[in-house]
């Protein structure tokens, strides 16, 4: 599956958005996802089947003022 994640091409063996988050070893409670410009709530990650060419953004809180 070829996905564009945070601006870079990734070729991943995944089915759902939840798999994508898991693939990168991210702490689920701290990550927010956007798929093709729309925010996907954490509770729906397992229901979103990713498809070739999807643009996924994975964001989180970092230090800031």
């Amino acid at each position, binding site marked *: 599956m070829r996905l564009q994640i945070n601006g870079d091409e990734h070729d991943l063996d995944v089915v759902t958005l939840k798999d994508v988050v898991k693939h990168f070893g991210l702490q689920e409670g701290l990550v927010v996802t956007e798929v093709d410009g729309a925010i996907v709530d954490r509770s729906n990650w397992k229901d979103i089947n990713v498809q070739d060419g999807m643009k996924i953004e994975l964001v*989180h809180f970092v230090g800031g003022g």
Partner: protein
Amino acid sequence: MTNKLTIAGKQLSSRLFLGTGRYPNPYVQNKAIEVSEAEVLTFAIRRVNLSAPDEDAILQHIEKPFQYLPNTSGATSAEEAIRIARLAKASGLSDWIKIEVSQDEKMLIPDPIETLKATEILANEGFIVLPYTSDDPALCYRLQEAGASAVMPGGSPIGTGLGILNPYNIERITEKLTVPVIVDAGLGSAADVTQAMELGADGVLLNTAIAKARNPVMMAEAVKHAIHAGRLSYSAGRISKKKYATASSPIQS
């Protein structure tokens, strides 16, 4: 002095909002947060670095529950700020948002028009909106009327430590607004913090002044006392300034 700061119905015992950027390490940061007694912490929202996901993550280092105030730093328009605000809210960690919109990389001066636009839209969406803005009394008033739960004028540009460049304006803002005024940005030391509080600010937001002090933990403590001193002084009511001397003792015995 015992009266508490209330923002959008939430009572806060501390009038200090603390940024979480640029500390030497998580241990010093946590210690500084603890000593400061701050209850509101600010954050930024960024893409996860997928080759080192934990590198810049922050929340795993934060120990006890705080009121999180994510910011929209990096946004150059209302549209971008709104996107970041919605992402922040989707974290499930907070519905508070510090609007920060700038097109000026050198000065990081907040864009007044885009800030007002984002404030209005997000307040209508149910966010608790705290816009960071320039120290313009008319603009601060407009932000309040647009639905801001608190307004956060800058003392001077972010990270400069130049203190309050226009105390006259800050005082006009604290006099005019009915929502809390938090002086944000540019404060460099405990003295600047005391001045902000004496001008009637309801609180201050600091990051660099503490994170980049030679001893951040000690500065956190100094700032805590400065807020207390400044607030007491404001409540006590300072004397008016006079041109000529007035003897402290009676002239004739």
